[in-house]
């Protein structure tokens, strides 16, 4: 039911692992050029190859580690770990609030960080949410979008997952501003494992529901990013009627619309 993909879950879960270059993988891509390329995803064939590679890594490495983490770690500890890393990300959030001229929200998010860092014992407890300071979701990709930087092509980055031409530098800046990037490999590894474990439900939904998991992931990711950039104010509603009216009327498909369909 929930077809949302959290960018943090999907993009960041293997940020600091060994680097495999896009070029080295593009060699594995199918050279079939009979398929149409779309404006949004001009490198679809290469992207699909990297997507398959990432899935294999996920299946054989990340998923088992995340499952072991879920099995071995009490829920309270998992919540504490999640709160801790989320609190560090709030630095990035309020920084980008101000860059987007959202000053009230910036003050609120700065307050969140200060409350959780002090009263919340270094971020282990999310006291700020309990006292009504709502968590927001901002990052450099969103800031660049607000500044008018175009999205660029959809890209699947080896080990990192979905991104865009604008999202790649955005993620580099997000990572640079996150203190957990500098404290050492074990802490960063823990964050990545936690992110993957958190994304389990979303990834299972894709596996279970998607007819074409690559397209599903791409579209859910891009729609979700646009939703975050617009802060949920502008949705697909603007186009939906046009979309729903563009079908070609046919004289077939005569099933009665109001009657239950026969069970298989």
């Amino acid at each position, binding site marked *: 039911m929930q077809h949302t993909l959290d960018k943090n879950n999907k993009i960041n879960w293997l940020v600091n692992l060994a680097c495999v270059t896009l070029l080295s993988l593009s060699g594995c891509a199918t050279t079939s050029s009979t398929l149409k390329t779309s404006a949004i995803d001009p490198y679809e064939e290469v992207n699909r190859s990297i997507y398959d590679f990432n899935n294999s890594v996920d299946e054989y490495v990340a998923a088992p580690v995340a499952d072991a983490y879920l099995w071995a770690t009490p829920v309270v500890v998992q919540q504490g770990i999640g709160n801790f890393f989320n609190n560090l990300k709030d630095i990035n959030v309020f920084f980008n609030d101000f860059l987007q001229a959202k000053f009230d929200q910036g003050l609120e998010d700065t307050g969140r960080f200060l409350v959780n860092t002090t009263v919340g014992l270094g971020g282990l407890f999310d006291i700020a949410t309990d006292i009504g300071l709502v968590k927001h979701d901002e990052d450099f990709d969103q800031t660049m979008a607000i500044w008018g930087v175009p999205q660029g092509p959809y890209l699947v980055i080896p080990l990192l997952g979905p991104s865009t031409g604008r999202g790649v530098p955005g993620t580099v800046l997000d990572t640079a501003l996150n203190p957990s990037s500098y404290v050492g490999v074990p802490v960063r590894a823990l964050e990545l494992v936690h992110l993957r474990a958190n994304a389990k439900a979303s990834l299972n939904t894709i596996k279970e*529901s998607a007819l074409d998991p690559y397209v599903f992931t791409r579209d859910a990711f891009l729609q979700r990013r646009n939703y975050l950039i617009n802060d949920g104010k502008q949705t697909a509603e603007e186009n*939906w009627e046009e979309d729903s009216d563009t079908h*070609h009327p046919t004289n077939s498909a005569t099933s009665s*619309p109001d009657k239950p369909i026969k*069970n298989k």
Partner: protein
Amino acid sequence: MLLLLRTKMILIWILYWLSFTPLAFAQEETAKQVVENFQNELIAVMKQGKELGFKGRYEKLNPVISKSHDLIKIARVVVGKESVKLSEEQQQKLVDTFSHLSIAAYAYNFKEYAGESFKFDSEKETKQGGTVIYTSLLVPNDKEVKFEYMLKKKGDNWKIINIIANGVSDLALKRSEYTSILERDGFEALIAKMNEKIDNYSKQ
């Protein structure tokens, strides 16, 4: 004069009796009611989810979804321009399989209840005569999920055409998937994939 009075009396009598007939109460559901009735039924099925099992949930949801959603229109929209390439028989097959898959997906995903509830937020009329119903799914100890229902009138009845969950449009997602598979692998492959999903759902 007497004739006029008698005609008047007869008219009043007819109107009086008509007021007791079901016709007087047969008001069409508003778009909001369509969504709320659908959500109520969904929650009711979730509450009985375990006892009903997949088959029971499917049977309960089948009439509910068929009534509240315009599955024929949705099925045509998701194949987009590719629909002109399909024969009449293929289009019928697509609508049937799509309807089975949609109901099976609901029956699979809404299998248990953990205190969830829907809350109506607002509604809005669109420029082209549609209605958007904004709701939130409240999940205990978790973030709420925004659900926007897009409805259009089919005859006298409002029908759900699309659902947007936290900014992700189900219709747009499906259209990308379906058109991509049709372009890459063809119609039979699409139907095979849809049937595979239905089978997987029903085995759970």
